[in-house]
């Protein structure tokens, strides 16, 4: 005679599942970490002399403790910063006071005049973090817009829609050179 397996009462299954659900709701987080990615320069004990960069290739951005921005000694508002940085990096008129360009052969794009400009960001100890991030954001935005324009010209699509190889090519043509200077007090 075949044995009959007794049916398991499943009415408490819902309770068990609810219990697990509530546990996971409490013990986990859903936030996705996002932010501005940067690479810090290596540490050296001795006071290093400034790396050998020509004056025309360096854009000095100062943010003081009153959260005021000065670019090459000229006061700017946060809204003007992006266009100023973009104009400076692109140097469309080949102005001898703006950064020089070195023509390099880049895969997929071909010969492209790569800007040699470096943006140096200096801040005071009293600068607010919010302002610092805003400035970083605007500088990133300047580079991203240049990349986007180049990407549309070459591939007909915005930078974000390109595949990895194409993105690398664009990044080679428009390197994001934002240097974080040694800390110092500025007025």
């Amino acid at each position: 005679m075949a044995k009959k397996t007794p049916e398991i009462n499943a009415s408490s299954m819902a309770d068990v599942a609810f219990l697990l659900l509530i546990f996971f709701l409490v013990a986990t987080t859903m936030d996705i970490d996002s932010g501005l990615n940067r690479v810090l320069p290596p540490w050296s004990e001795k006071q290093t002399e400034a790396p050998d960069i020509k004056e025309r290739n360096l854009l000095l951005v100062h943010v003081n403790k009153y959260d005021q921005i000065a670019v090459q000694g000229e006061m700017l508002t946060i809204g003007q910063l992006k266009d100023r940085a973009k104009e400076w990096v692109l140097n469309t008129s080949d102005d001898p006071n703006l950064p020089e360009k070195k023509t390099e052969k880049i895969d997929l794009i071909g010969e492209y005049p790569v800007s040699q400009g470096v943006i140096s960001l200096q801040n005071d100890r009293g600068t607010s973090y919010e302002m610092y991030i805003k400035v970083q954001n605007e500088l990133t935005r300047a580079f991203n817009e240049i990349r986007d324009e180049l990407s549309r010209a070459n591939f007909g699509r915005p930078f974000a829609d390109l595949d990895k190889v194409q993105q690398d090519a664009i990044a080679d043509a428009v390197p994001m050179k934002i240097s974080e200077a040694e800390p110092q007090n500025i007025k």
Partner: protein
Amino acid sequence: MPVIRKKEKKEIGQISTSSLPDIVFMILFFFMVSTSMKETELVVKFKAPQATEIQKLENKALASYIYVGPPVESLQAKFGSAPQIQLNNSFSSPQEIGRFIASERDLLNEADRNKMTVCLKADKDTRMGIITDIKQELRKAEAYKISYAASKAAGNLK
């Protein structure tokens, strides 16, 4: 002649709950997949600054977190309201960052160690002095990849 019908008493049948566990399990799996475990209890409160050009953190497993901000209300009586650095679950001084980075690095595979990213979650009202100190310590500890946590801003920043 209109017929006035007597309202019939409707019997409401019992709702079948046999599919309830299935639904709950479905929600459960959704939460299990889309969330991650809380690893630290925050002792500082922070509101991330807003930015538009943010990128997602590539790999959460390779990230170490440093929080900066004023202590939470319940601890302000003891620690004051000046911004503090939180490593793991407690307040720390900038000098402890070196040791913290070394211990975080030990937890990673040999191959992944140079990909380690420090995610700096700082309150937007913090002054840069403390951030600069952290950055200097990170440079000393050879943790060069850093991500300044920011939340996505809607539209342009003003």
